[in-house]
């Protein structure tokens, strides 16, 4: 059993190009710190994120997956995040139903101006996942070691 203090979670963050990725950049520009455990994948829009990607991340050893997009109403493509919102709500509910810790998945709306919110969200999410410990319920044992 790994010591919780030593456990460094792997976090995948999907960020939409127009708001959240820019928000992440702004966090960088303002030198706002958040753990290096977070790795960002740029997608055009939150609606590009397929549930497959999220499961894939868990399979490959991610301990938490967070999806960031424009605030509802601000989508660069007008409606993308509304679809993402429904898809993720249902997916997360299903994961919870299967007994997979719901705290490992999250959606946050982060605008291009919210560098501080981005950093704060990441800090909080990493802390929450660290608290949970390693992902055991959706791991693929073949990908370990």
């Amino acid at each position: 059993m790994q010591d919780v203090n030593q456990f460094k979670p792997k976090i995948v963050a999907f960020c939409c190009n127009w708001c959240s990725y820019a928000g992440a950049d702004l966090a960088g520009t303002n030198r706002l710190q958040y753990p290096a455990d977070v790795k960002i994948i740029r997608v055009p829009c939150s609606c590009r994120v397929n549930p497959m990607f999220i499961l894939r991340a868990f399979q490959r050893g991610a301990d938490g997956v967070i999806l960031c997009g424009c605030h509802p109403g601000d989508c660069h493509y007008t409606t993308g995040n509304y679809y993402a919102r429904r898809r993720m709500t249902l997916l997360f509910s299903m994961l919870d139903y299967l007994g997979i810790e719901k705290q490992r998945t999250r959606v946050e709306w982060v605008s291009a101006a919210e560098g501080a919110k981005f950093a704060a969200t990441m800090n909080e999410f990493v802390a929450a996942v660290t608290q949970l410990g390693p992902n055991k319920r959706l791991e693929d044992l073949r990908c370990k070691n």
Partner: protein
Amino acid sequence: MQELMLAKAKELLQNGTVNRVLGWQAGEFVYDITPAVFESEQDLDAGFVYNEFCGNNLSKYLIKESRKEGKVLAFLKPCDTYSFNQLIKEHRIIRENVYVIGVPCEGKTDGETLKSKGVKGILGAKSEGDELIIDTLYGEQRLSKRDALTARCLTCKSKKHVVYDELLGEEGEEVPENHRFEEVEKLEAMTPDERFAFWRGELSRCIRCNACRNVCPACSCEKCVFDNPASGISQKAAADSFEENMFHIIRAFHVAGRCTDCGECSRVCPQNIPLHLLNRKFIKDIDAFYGEYQAGEDTESRAPLTNFTYDDVEPSIVYKGGKK
């Protein structure tokens, strides 16, 4: 009813309305019914059957059948009509090429269900009042029809035909008090650990025979992502517990908002995994989050996952225990 259907089928064949009939064919025992296309009256006389064992949902066959020459007569039970409508909506069935006759359904039974009630060596069965009299290798057994019902029929959502060209028998009603979410609620009430243990126990039996997928009227993809090496998630056998989860989660997600809850997935699962509980969870969530929606009820409405409202619930609702 079987006689009525036979007569109707022959009439429509004779007058050229249709050139073939999609129905159920009798098997070796009473319960091993096979969906079949009958091309002539002789064929019909030789094997056509309709009874409490005719559970197969015939809608999916119409994807293929409606693309053939001529018009096909399809006998559809109430729950089959929902699947049929959904397939019409998704442009999978060519409506003009199908003559739909709605047939009533009092709930179905099958060999597995009878065996689960302790009946062994089933040879034949006949219905007498509220009872099924089953002839077995080890003597005659009686079972009340209610007890013989398959699990999915016990929570039947509707005895109404949502689409037909003609109806045989009385039109039924929707069944609002169907209690079909009770099992889902039971699971929701468990702790995550219990739920995890439950689903691991169930899904670990999966042999990836694809029966659930191949029978599912909503799973009518030209090529399934799980069969497509280019998709990056193709798999043939679930080589790891993750892959068991993956297949069933993604499959349920792909049919979310499109699944009519016909229950075929659980019926055909050789390992008796209650797969319908995954689909029902989505149905229940959709009803709760976005308003009641019954896939297949109509051919126009937007499916919940291709729709939205500005004030939809946030995904964080999941952390709040699904309460709005």
